[in-house]
């Protein structure tokens, strides 16, 4: 198989999408009443809630009574030293974000229709759902006090903000009329299990000096976590180079200490196994697990399609998952007081029993997967701290019990908040509805509960991997729709905004041909009630 050199580091592209982008200026210090300025018929108010979380309210002169409350995604709760790929140079910020990414096009479009927008920067960063929910409740009160003609509040949010939005819908149906969790995180335990499995897999196969959790207290723990980021990206970078140099049988990284016999299995297969066992999608921003460069001999092309492209997809997605894994694990351990990841009882062979047939070529057949799983079965496992894990479990989780209309939207190849997050909320809502229907029947009623949950998906195109004229995968192009974390267009966001407005006004979601037309015009939004995303692996044992 011909070798190739990537035009650009995969990790640089992938990880940058993890952090929510902040484009608005930092507001003034905490104050009881907001400071407002008006220009061009738009009033912008800056202030802070009682927890010192800065917020921003933007209201047009022709305010129609409906305001959009946006909750931003995960921002690390620690500064990340410059030089670390993708996330390096980050400093903690609580800049308010009144719309997805603070995008002026989205804000402008909503204001033009008479809607107001608002958002908090939240009091703390990292996993902050419990405090952010309280902040948002207070912020709604602040807005209503400032604008008494407010009639409807609709909530939306991305990633962790999607978690917060869903929780708001479950807990405060009296405060909001409709909600749209986007690329949502759902329950924390499965999410951190996915991240933990990914880091542990990278550590086990590629660099055992990665700590992967159970970080020390104080500055030493911070140094360990940042060191892990560097080591993870170094291992992933080494794999990228190795696959480029010899796609069929890439070398194992120099940091790997797997037995010599295991090194007979191509290292790329270990990447695929780590992705599968942690539940990370097998399509990434630039790799569709299907395409091959033009001009390869037929046999090589098939091998690229079935084995090489999936390995590159796993590589690209693992960069994202591992970045989340390290940063969130460090933060949550600080909050919980100890190690939160425990895989002492995990049966990784059972985890991949279905997929190993599908990805047999990428896993180098039964012999390859047998050897890799055999190694995972004998190496030491990560042990969590029971008290810390219990504390983590006590944080807010979703119940799926929602009475107001909700609109869910995620990409089926999101490597950070995998589609299983959205699916778990769909399943919980279905169970809740079934319980309600059973209770209705028991009371001799006949009216079925209304389905107030609209689940939309962004699905990648059949083929989207681009190659240069020389046959090298081109990772300099934009991430394909349906892939990457919260990779939505302005048109998609505005379609969601329209659907929220309709739901708030009508008490139910848009349906039928009008819905289909709306999402078709936005592009790459699919409504398919028959679609079931694979749940996060944690649910499957």
């Amino acid at each position, binding site marked *: 198989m011909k070798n190739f050199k990537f035009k650009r580091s995969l990790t640089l592209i992938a990880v940058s999408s993890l952090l929510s982008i902040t484009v608005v200026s930092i507001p003034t210090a905490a104050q009881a009443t907001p400071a407002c300025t008006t220009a061009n018929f738009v009033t912008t108010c800056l202030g802070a809630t009682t927890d010192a979380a800065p917020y921003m309210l933007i209201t047009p002169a022709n305010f129609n009574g409906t305001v959009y409350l946006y909750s931003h995604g995960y921002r690390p709760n620690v500064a990340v030293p410059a030089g670390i790929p993708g996330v390096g140079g980050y400093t903690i910020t609580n800049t308010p974000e009144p719309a997805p990414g603070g995008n002026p096009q989205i804000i402008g479009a909503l204001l033009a*229709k008479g809607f107001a927008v608002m958002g908090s920067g939240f009091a703390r960063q990292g996993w902050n759902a419990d405090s952010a929910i309280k902040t948002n409740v207070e912020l709604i009160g602040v807005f209503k006090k400032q604008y008494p003609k407010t009639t409807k509040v609709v909530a939306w949010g991305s990633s962790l903000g999607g978690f917060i939005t869903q929780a708001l819908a479950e807990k405060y149906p009296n405060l909001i009329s409709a909600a749209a969790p986007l690329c949502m995180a759902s329950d924390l335990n499965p999410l951190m299990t996915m991240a933990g499995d990914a880091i542990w897999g990278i550590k086990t196969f590629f660099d055992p000096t990665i700590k992967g959790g159970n970080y020390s207290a104080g500055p030493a723990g911070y140094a360990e976590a940042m060191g892990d980021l560097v080591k993870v990206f170094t291992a992933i970078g080494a794999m990228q180079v190795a696959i480029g140099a010899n796609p069929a049988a890439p070398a194992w990284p120099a940091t790997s200490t797997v037995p010599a016999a295991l090194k007979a299995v191509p290292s790329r297969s270990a990447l695929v196994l780590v992705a599968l066992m942690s539940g990370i999608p*097998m*399509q990434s921003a630039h790799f*569709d*697990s*299907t395409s091959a460069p033009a001009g390869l*001999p*037929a*046999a*090589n*092309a*098939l*091998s690229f*399609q*079935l*084995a090489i492209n*999936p390995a590159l997809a796993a590589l690209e997605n693992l960069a994202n998952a591992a970045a989340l894994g390290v940063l969130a694990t460090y933060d949550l351990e600080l909050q919980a007081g100890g190690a939160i990841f425990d895989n002492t009882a995990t049966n990784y062979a059972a985890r991949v029993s*279905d997929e190993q*047939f*599908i*990805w*047999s*070529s990428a896993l*180098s*057949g*039964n*012999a*390859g997967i047998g050897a890799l799983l055999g190694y995972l079965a004998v190496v030491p496992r990560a042990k969590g701290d029971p008290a810390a894990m219990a504390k983590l479990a006590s944080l807010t989780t979703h119940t799926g019990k929602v009475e107001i209309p909700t609109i869910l939207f995620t990409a089926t190849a999101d490597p950070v908040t995998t589609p299983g997050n959205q699916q778990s909320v769909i399943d919980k809502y279905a169970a809740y509805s079934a319980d309600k229907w059973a209770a209705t029947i028991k009371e001799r009623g006949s009216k079925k509960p209304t389905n107030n949950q609209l689940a939309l998906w962004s*699905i990648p*195109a*059949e*083929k989207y991997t681009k190659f240069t004229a020389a046959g090298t995968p081109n990772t300099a192009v934009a991430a394909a729709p349906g892939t990457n974390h919260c990779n939505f267009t302005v048109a998609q966001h505005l379609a969601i905004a*329209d*659907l929220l*407005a*309709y739901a708030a*006004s*009508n008490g139910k979601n*848009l*349906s*039928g*041909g*009008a819905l*289909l*037309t*709306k999402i078709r015009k936005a592009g790459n939004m699919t409504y*398919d009630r*028959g*679609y*079931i995303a*694979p749940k996060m692996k944690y649910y499957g044992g």
Partner: protein
Amino acid sequence: MIRKTPRKGTWLAATVLASGSLFATALPAYAEAGVSAREIKLGITLPLTGAASPGYNKIGNAMNAYFKYVNDNGGVYGRKITLIQKNDEYSPQLAIAKTNELILKDKVFALVGPLGTATYTAVHKSVNLAKRGVPSLFLNTGFSGFSDKKSYPTSFMILSSYAMEAKIVAQFLKDNHAGKKLGLVYQNDEFGIDAITAFKAAGTKFDVTVPYTSGSQSAATAQTWVSQLAAGGAQVVVFFGVTSATAPLLAVSAAAKYAPQWILGSVGSDPLTLRALGVPVAVLNGAQTPAGNPSPNDTSDEYVKQFQEINTKYNDAPFDDYVLQGMNLGLMTVQALRAAGSNPTRKGLIRAMESKGSSFASVAYSPLGYSKTSNVGHTGYYMAVMDANGDRKPFGGTVKLYTTDSGSGPVVLSTFKRPAMPAKGLPSNS
């Protein structure tokens, strides 16, 4: 912006769009996806291009040719059959996308003949065929895992399983090649699992085993297989893999003047395709193979004769095992559709398969295993040998059919007589 108080006309239009047509709600006959007054739409995914496509890429056109023949003779209860073929290139991820397209965009009534084990595993898992209630008839794979009716309630196999095949080959080895050094080359996935498990249960011990990863087959990799087989002194080599792997194996062996007794698995042994891939006919001469169908050259067979006629008129492709298989899938599909009645529904089609499928006419010699509790297709093989012309003849001169199951059941010499070909190849069952 979305209108808050929609006009009645707008909503009527939306309702019509959503349900397909107003007419649809009035006539149950048109209520099912893929079925209209004049047409039944079916879909198939298979590799039409790429390294894995040789041979397999003929199946869809052969099915289509048979459907055209049926359509020209009145269709199925007056409806013409349209078959939509999608090229999955043997890629699981692409098979998912193409199947979604068939179901959601093309809105086919059922899938027929989807090909490939990894691809179908991926499709079943990701497209949720069972939950959607989409019938998937006559899978072109012999993986015995698909015979789990609980997991695959809407799927029906057609090929005898790889486990059945291995059990019958094991018996053949015992009866005809006892005492010789045995080699096994197998695709190292569920294809191979079926074979290995069955050989192990039958007590067959191979002196040399050579696994290969699906997709890795090439002349270069075949060199390593042949080296291992020759070094191990294998006198009889059993091959369980696809045609695109058989071809380099035989070609490289011939070049190396390594000439064991070949026993080529049923799905990778079509002589015409192998010859087209560069395997000299002399190498094929004497190769043994388990077979389910008669030779495509056997014009004394009523099925072959009829299908050849249809092929000449509607397909004009060289008539080989794959074309025969495709035609037969068409024949069985038409019987299934007829059995589902004049107003077919997906549920009705599945019920028809369960209650009547085992009596369908099929070119293969062995019984069909369909019932309410089984989605097993054919259940046996006879052993054949290839001659100097690249044709396939029954081993020993006459067809000796062996039947068995995918589990621990015995291999039995069968007296089963397959149903006759319907008159003019046009089913009249109900």
